[in-house]
C-alpha cells in the first residue's frame, strides 16, 4: 500500500497580552481549508506554553501572531523555549504588526516568513507548503 502524503500540522499562537485574534483565526482557517491540521491555542500565551504545545502536538510549523509591539521581546523567548525542548525542526513564521525596520531582526531569529497586514492568505499557504520540512 502506498503511504499517502503526510498531513501538515501547524500551531497558531498569540504570545503576549494583546487580545485581538481575528488575524490569527483568518490564517488558521485558511490553512485548514488548504488541508492542514491547525492547532489553535487561543490568546495570551507565554513562550513556555507555546513551545510546550508545539512539542506535545509534534507540529511541522509554528505561526505566531502579534499586534502588541513586543515581538523583539517575546519571539526570541519562544525560539529559546523551543530549542530547550529539542524542537529544532519546525518552520517558523509570524504575522501582525512588525515594523519594516524589525523584519531583518525577526528573520535572523529564524522566522523564515514575516507577513504583515493585507497579506493574501494564499501567499501564506504557499509559503507553508513550500517550506514545511520533509521528515523521515
Amino acid at each position, binding site marked *: 500500500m502506498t503511504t499517502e502524503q503526510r498531513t501538515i500540522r501547524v500551531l497558531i499562537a498569540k504570545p503576549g497580552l494583546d487580545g485581538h485574534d481575528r488575524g490569527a483565526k483568518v490564517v488558521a482557517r485558511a490553512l485548514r481549508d488548504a488541508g492542514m491540521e491547525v492547532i489553535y491555542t487561543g490568546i495570551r500565551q507565554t513562550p*513556555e506554553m507555546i513551545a510546550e504545545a508545539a512539542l506535545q502536538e509534534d507540529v511541522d510549523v509554528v505561526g505566531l501572531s502579534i499586534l502588541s509591539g513586543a515581538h523583539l521581546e517575546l519571539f526570541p523567548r519562544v525560539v529559546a523555549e523551543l530549542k530547550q525542548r529539542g524542537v529544532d525542526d519546525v518552520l517558523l513564521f509570524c504575522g501582525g504588526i512588525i515594523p519594516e525596520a524589525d523584519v531583518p531582526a525577526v528573520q535572523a531569529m529564524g522566522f523564515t516568513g514575516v507577513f504583515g497586514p493585507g497579506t493574501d492568505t494564499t501567499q501564506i499557504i504557499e509559503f507553508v507548503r513550500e517550506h514545511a520540512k520533509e521528515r523521515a
Partner: protein
Amino acid sequence: MDAAELVAGVAAGDRRALARAITHVEADSPAGRAVLAGLYPRTGGAHTIGVTGSAGVGKSTLVGALAREERRRGRTVGIVAVDPSSPFSHGAILGDRIRMQDLTADAGVFMRSMASRGNLGGLAEAASGVVDVLDAAGYDIVIVETVGAGQDEVEVATAAESTVLVSTPAGGDDVQSMKAGLMEIAQIMVVNKADLAGVETTVMQLRGLLAIAPPRGWTPPIVKTVARTNDGIAELVDALDAHRAYLRGSAHAAAERRELARAQIVALARAALYRQALATAAHEGVLATLVEEVATRRRDPRDAAQTLLAAVWRHGQDTHEA
C-alpha cells in the same frame, strides 16, 4: 529516530520521543505499527477513560476539569482530544487546548489534539493507538475526548475502559438519541451544565432509560456537574475510581477485558478491511468500472458491492502469496 529509539525514548519518559511516536501511530505508518508493537507490552497500567457526547455539551471543559481533579489526587494525565476533519479539504482546526491552557504548563500532563481524518482508517483505530502510547508512557490516567457524531461515539467505547457519556439539561432530544447504542456503551452518565433549568427532568429520563436497559454487573451512576465551576467533578472522579475498582477487582473483570479486546480487534479489522477495499477499488479501476455499470443500469448496486468485495479478497490473497 527509528522505531526502536522511539520505543526506548517513550519508556524513558522523553516527551519529544512520545510526541513523535504518536505522530507515527496516528499515521498508521510501518514505523507507527512497529512502535505500537514495541510499546504494547508496557500498556495496561493506565486507567483509560473515554468522554463522549453531542457537540456543545461541554466535553472539553469537562475534560479539563477532570484532568485538574486527577492532578489534585496526585495522578499524571494524558489527554487525546479528537476534533472533526473537514470532509472537503481534510483540514481541521483543533481548538481543545484553548479550554485547557493551564494544563499545558503542567509537566504531569501531556495533551494531544487529533483530527478525525474522515472515517478512513476509523477513529477507534487511530485514537486507541494513541491511548496505548500514552498508557505505555506511564500516565496514570488517559482521557480520550471525541466529537459526538453517531458511530464515532459508539466506537470510542473500544478505546477506553470507562466511557463517560455527557449530556445537558436542555437536550431532551439528546436523551432520545442515546437510546440507540449509546446507553449500552456508557459506564457513567454525566449531566453537565447542571445549573440550568430542567436538570432533574433529564436525570429522571436517564434513570428511566437505565431501568429498561438489560441488567449488567455495573449500574451506570448519573453524576450532575457544572464543569465551568468544578461542581460535581470530585464526584465524577469518585465514580470513575469506583468503576476502575470494579473492572480490576470483580469476577466480571476478566470477561470485561476480553470483551474490550474483542471489540478492539473487530474495529481494527473492519477499518483495515475498509481501507483495503478503497485502495483496491482505486488502484485497479475496479470501482470506476462498477460505477459506470451501475449508473447506466447494467448492474445493480448490491451485485457491484459483491464484485468489489471479491476483488478485494483476490487482491488480499495475491498480496499474501507474494
